C-alpha cells in the first residue's frame, strides 16, 4: 500500500501552540519534511526568533539556538563562518527581518553568507498583539494603525524579496504562500531549493512565505486564506525573484 502520510522525523511530536489557521505550523512542517528528505537532521542548526515562533525549538528536532529580535542573520553568519560544515537556517517574522533586523539581513545577504532564511510575512506583529508590521498593507487596520495604514503617515509596506534579490551575494529568493494545498507544495519545493543552494555554497538563500494570521487579522481561517490570495499577493506577488542556477553566465 502507498504511504500517504508520515510524521516528519525532524518534527517533534508536540502539539503546536499556534492559533487555528496560522501559517507557522505549516511552514514548520514543510521545513521539517525538507530536512528529512535531504537527510540534514543531524547537521542542521536552526535559529528561531522572538515572536510567535519563539517556541520553534519545541517543534524542530534539530539543534536550535534562539537569538535576539532581528539578529538572526548575524547569528547565522557567526555560526556558519565558525563551523561551515553545518546547515544553518534562520526562521524570522516580518518585524524581525524587515524592521529591527533589516541591517543584519541586508548585509548577510550582500556578503553572500551560505545560510538559508525562512521569512514569515503575515503583515502584522503577532505575538505582541497585532501591531503594524513593516509589511502591513495600506489601509489595513492594526492596533497601532487603528484608522488603517495611511502611507503618508505610516509609510508603505516593504517588499523584502524585491529589495534583496538584486544584491550580488544572493543566490536564491522566492516568495510563496501557505494558503492552499497547491501553494504549500510550491513552498516546500522552494525551501528545498534554498537548502540546496546552501549545500552547493552558492550564497544567501531566502524563502518568503505569505502566512495567514486569522487571529490578528480578525478573520476566520478560511477568510484569511482568501485574503492572502486576494489582497496580500497584489502587494507581494508570488514567484522567483532570484535564482543563480537559472542565470546564464556573464562571461
Amino acid at each position, binding site marked *: 500500500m502507498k504511504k500517504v502520510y508520515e510524521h516528519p522525523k525532524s518534527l517533534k511530536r508536540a502539539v503546536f501552540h499556534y492559533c487555528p489557521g496560522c501559517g507557522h505550523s505549516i511552514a514548520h512542517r514543510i521545513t521539517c519534511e525538507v530536512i528529512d528528505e535531504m537527510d540534514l*537532521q*543531524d*547537521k*542542521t*542548526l536552526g*535559529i528561531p526568533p*522572538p515572536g510567535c515562533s*519563539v517556541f520553534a*525549538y519545541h517543534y*524542530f*528536532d*534539530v*539543534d*536550535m*539556538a*534562539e*537569538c*535576539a529580535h532581528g*539578529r538572526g542573520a*548575524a*547569528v*547565522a*553568519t*557567526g*555560526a*556558519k*563562518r*565558525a*563551523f561551515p*560544515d*553545518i*546547515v544553518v537556517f534562520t526562521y524570522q517574522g516580518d518585524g524581525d527581518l524587515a524592521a529591527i533586523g533589516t*541591517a*543584519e539581513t*541586508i*548585509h548577510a545577504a550582500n*556578503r553572500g553568507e551560505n545560510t538559508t532564511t525562512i521569512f514569515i510575512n503575515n503583515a502584522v506583529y503577532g505575538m505582541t498583539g497585532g501591531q503594524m508590521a513593516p509589511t502591513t498593507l495600506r489601509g489595513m487596520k492594526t492596533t497601532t494603525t487603528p484608522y488603517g495604514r495611511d502611507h503618508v503617515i505610516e509609510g508603505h509596506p516593504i517588499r523584502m524579496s524585491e529589495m534583496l534579490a538584486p544584491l550580488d551575494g544572493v543566490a536564491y529568493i522566492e516568495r510563496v504562500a501557505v494558503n492552499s494545498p497547491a501553494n504549500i507544495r510550491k513552498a516546500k519545493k522552494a525551501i528545498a531549493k534554498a537548502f540546496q543552494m546552501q549545500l552547493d555554497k552558492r550564497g544567501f538563500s531566502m524563502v518568503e512565505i505569505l502566512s495567514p494570521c486569522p487571529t490578528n487579522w480578525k478573520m476566520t481561517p478560511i477568510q484569511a486564506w482568501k485574503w492572502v490570495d486576494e489582497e496580500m499577493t497584489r502587494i507581494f506577488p508570488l514567484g522567483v525573484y532570484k535564482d543563480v542556477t537559472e542565470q546564464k553566465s556573464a562571461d
Partner: protein
Amino acid sequence: MTKVLMDGNSSIGEAAIRAGCQCYFGYPITPQNELTEYMATHLSRRKGCAFVQAESELAAINMVYGASVVGARAMTSSSSPGISLKQEGISYLAACELPAVIVNMSRGGPGLGSIAAAQSDYFQATRGGGHGDYRTIVLAPSSVQELADLTMRAFDLADKYKIPVIILGDGVLGQMMEPVEFKREAPAQLPVREDALRGAKGRPSRIRKTFTSNPAELEEINWSLFRRYGLIKKEETTWETFMTDDARLVVVAFGIAARIAKGAIRNVRAEGLKVGLLRPITLWPFPDEAVKEVAKNVEHFLVFEMNMGQMIEDVQLSLEGKGEVSFYGRPGGVIPNPSEVARVISRLYYQKGLK
C-alpha cells in the same frame, strides 16, 4: 620567547590568536582599530578561523553569539559608544551561558564623547551592562604586557565558567607601544566544547534559549547563574598591592590610572610619605577582601579614577563604613600626569595629619 615592541591593541590580537581565538567580529571605532586590523591581517586567512567586519556592533556581538553557539573561541572589540550597542548581545550571551571575550578600549563619554582615554565605563562593565540580572568577569590591565596576559586568561575564564569576559582597557593602553612577551604558542587545534551545537549527530537535538514563559524556571536560571558567580568571586578575584606594607595612606586605582598613581607614589615616597597602592585587576569580581585586609592597618584611602567616581562605590561598600575615603577624578578623556596626582596625594597626607 623574546620581547617584541607592540601597541596595546595589536598585542591583544596576537595574544588572542595564541589563546586559540578562532573568530573575530568587529566594527571600526577609535581608539581600538589596530586590533580589528591586526585580526584582518593575522586571523582572517588562518585555517579554521573567521574574521568579519560587521555592519554594526550589534551585528558583531551577535556573530560572536553564533560562533560561540557552535563552540568556537570568539571575540569582538570596540570602544565605549560601540560597547553600549553590544549590551543586548552580552545579556543574551550571559543568559545562554556562552563564553565570549569582549574588549572595551574605553574613551570619554557620555554620548559620542571624545576619542581620548577614560574610565567612565566602570559601572557599565561591572554591573552587567545590559538588561537583566547578570554579571560579566571584568579584567583591567594596566600595561601592554598585562593586556596580552589577561587576553589569554580571558579566553580561559570564559570557557571555564561559560561566561562573557570583558577586558576593560582604555585609549592609552590601546595606543601606546611597550615591549611585550607572549607566553604561549597558538594551539594546533582546540578540543571541541562539549556543549557546542554542531548538528545532532549521535545524540538528541539540543536547544540554546533564553526565553521561558515560566517565571519559576527563569528564577532557577538566575539562581544558577549567581551560584556560579559566587564561585568565580571565590576563585578568580585578583589584585596587586604596591608599597602597602608600611603605608598610612593607600591609593586605590585600576588600569592606566593605577599606572599613573604608581609614578605619583614613587614621587611622594621620595619625600618620605608612606603611601601605597591597591590595584584591582578583576573589577568584577571586585577584591573587597583585599580592601578589608589593607584597612586593618590603614585608615585613609584615596580613590583615583579617570571619571567622576564609579569604583569608589565598590571601595566604600568593601570598607563597610570603616576608614576615610577621598576621591580624585578627571573625567572626559583628560589624562592627569603623576606629578598632578602626587600633589593631590601629598595635600591629603598633610591635611589628615599623617606626617
